[in-house]
């Protein structure tokens, strides 16, 4: 028993030192207003500010909308890649794996070349609006939905689709009644991952909507770096962490219900 504890000690200690301790400092700082002492003042101040409430709302609706967009787009694209035989389908599926390793700001930068003020379709100028962020997030995060979906589709017994066909079902009905229900666990997994990632996304927002769009991570950044309001930044960070953790908890409950 003691030997096993000995083995567990180094990783736990490292985790505590490099992850939990700084996180605890953030939480601690959020209760320590600039004036000194320990109080809920920073929370009261932050919650009362319009900037925070706007950022919270922007963060949530952007994340939800992006997730919805990724789910719809990812499902359709995966359907095509998995079930419509075309030359290069394998290469596209492989590319999606590579795409997952790209940094998010790279996609945004690439989008700037098309939609930006000096870009190919420059006149739109919508990249600095929430819609620009939405477009970039959907573009970047859709493959995160497609990865589990493609895995689920490859597990699907094609004999089921053929059986449905011989029973008189056309493609839309087969998709709705057979493929969609059987890929729900994969959709839930990909969707919740994307939701959490979007809530915490920083690079895309910084590159596109920096001026007009403020999300929670952006607020942390501007409070900490630009305004030197560390307690305020820490409060926003704590809120952000709480949202992520509770979403993760929700995902675990839902996925257990779904039997995944």
């Amino acid at each position, binding site marked *: 028993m003691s030997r096993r504890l000995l083995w567990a000690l180094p990783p736990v200690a490292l985790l505590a030192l490099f992850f939990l301790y700084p996180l605890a400092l953030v939480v601690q700082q959020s209760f320590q207003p600039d004036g000194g002492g320990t109080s809920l003042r920073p929370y009261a101040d932050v919650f009362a500010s319009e900037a925070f409430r706007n950022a919270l709302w922007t963060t949530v609706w952007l994340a939800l909308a992006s997730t919805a967009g990724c789910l719809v787009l990812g499902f359709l694209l995966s359907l095509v890649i998995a079930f419509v035989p075309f030359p290069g389908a394998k290469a596209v599926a492989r590319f999606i794996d590579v795409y997952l390793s790209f940094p998010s700001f790279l996609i945004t930068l690439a989008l700037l070349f098309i939609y930006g003020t000096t870009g190919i379709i420059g006149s739109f100028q919508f990249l600095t609006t929430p819609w620009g962020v939405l477009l970039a997030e959907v573009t970047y995060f859709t493959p995160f939905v497609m990865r589990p979906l493609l895995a689920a589709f490859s597990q699907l*017994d094609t*004999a*089921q689709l*053929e*059986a*449905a*066909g*011989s*029973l*008189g*079902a*056309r493609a839309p*009905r087969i998709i709705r*009644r*057979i493929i969609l*229900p*059987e890929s729900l666990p994969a959709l839930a997994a990909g969707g919740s991952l994307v939701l959490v990632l979007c809530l915490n996304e920083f690079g895309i927002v910084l590159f596109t909507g920096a001026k007009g769009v403020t999300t929670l991570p952006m607020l942390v950044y501007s409070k900490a770096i630009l305004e030197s309001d560390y307690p305020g930044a820490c409060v926003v960070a704590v809120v952000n962490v709480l949202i992520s953790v509770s979403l993760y908890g929700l995902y675990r409950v839902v996925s257990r219900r779904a039997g995944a």
Partner: protein
Amino acid sequence: MGIRFDSVTVAYDGNVVLDSLDLTVEPGEVMALLGPSGSGKTTALRAVAGFVRPVSGRVLLGGRDVTDLPPYQRGIGMVVQSYALFPHMRVDENVAFGLKTRRAGKTETRQRVAEALELTGMAAYARRHPRELSGGQQQRVAIARALAIRPDVLLLDEPLSALDARLRSGMLAELARLHRELPDMSMLYVTHDQVEALTLADRIAVMDAARLQQCGTPRELYRSPKNEFTASFVGGANVLPVTVGCGGVGFAGTELKVDTGNAVAGARATLCVRPHVIGLGQGPNQLTGVVREIQWRGATHRLYVEVDGHSVMADVRELKDPPALGDPVSLHFAAEDAVLLPAGAGHE
């Protein structure tokens, strides 16, 4: 409704997997497509279902050309080896699927689902999910699902291959009963198991190497195979290279008296003799050899006897005192139990 294959050829990337198949399944007939894997039998079935497109030839259902119709317009029932049940639907929902796509009314759907489940003995399991059922039960549900749309043609692709031997013989009897209760429905039954084909089929189409080798009633195939492949695949006959003589054939330096038909004396030919017609000991048409292998199969012993370099199989009633390996033995068979094929009748 009958099925007709009119020189149907299927190829993938120039690789011919079904070579100009001509075959007619009469209305209400059970036709087995029997052959080893890669013989083209499943491809033929999939051409009827509409999942593969022939590069040439036509497929007709009840006289109607369906070659260009998609699967969902053919109205065919299909049962496959993996059952292919929809895992997220209950048994009754699985069976109702085809009726719902046809927009059948609620009462009619309920009635037909009950009927189909009754027919397959699965009525008690209507509210279960497929994962809660055994393999045999799942296959019954798959059959019920195919029957619920009242198809004129039922396609079965190795339906019993995933079941163990005991369940298989039970399901075979079930399928035979189903056919008696639905006498107008044609069945196309793909299998590699000759017992299934011989038991169930009115006629058997023997396939090998993408071609139809022979088509006939089980008795015809068994009694008068047209070529070596049919002879050895159906019933596992011994095929012995012989030379035609006068009123008999020469094999391994022995003169065997068999019906030579119109074979020319001096020609090479193949003699087919089934293992179970060969007796041990002295008799007419006698061969002598050395026992190389002996298998006890309960009611019978199978002997592998080497006769002049050729292995001859004989199934004899269980022996009280079986010969030992290496013992010399004599084998014999009656002239009328052997079939002579012209040499080169290896394949169509």
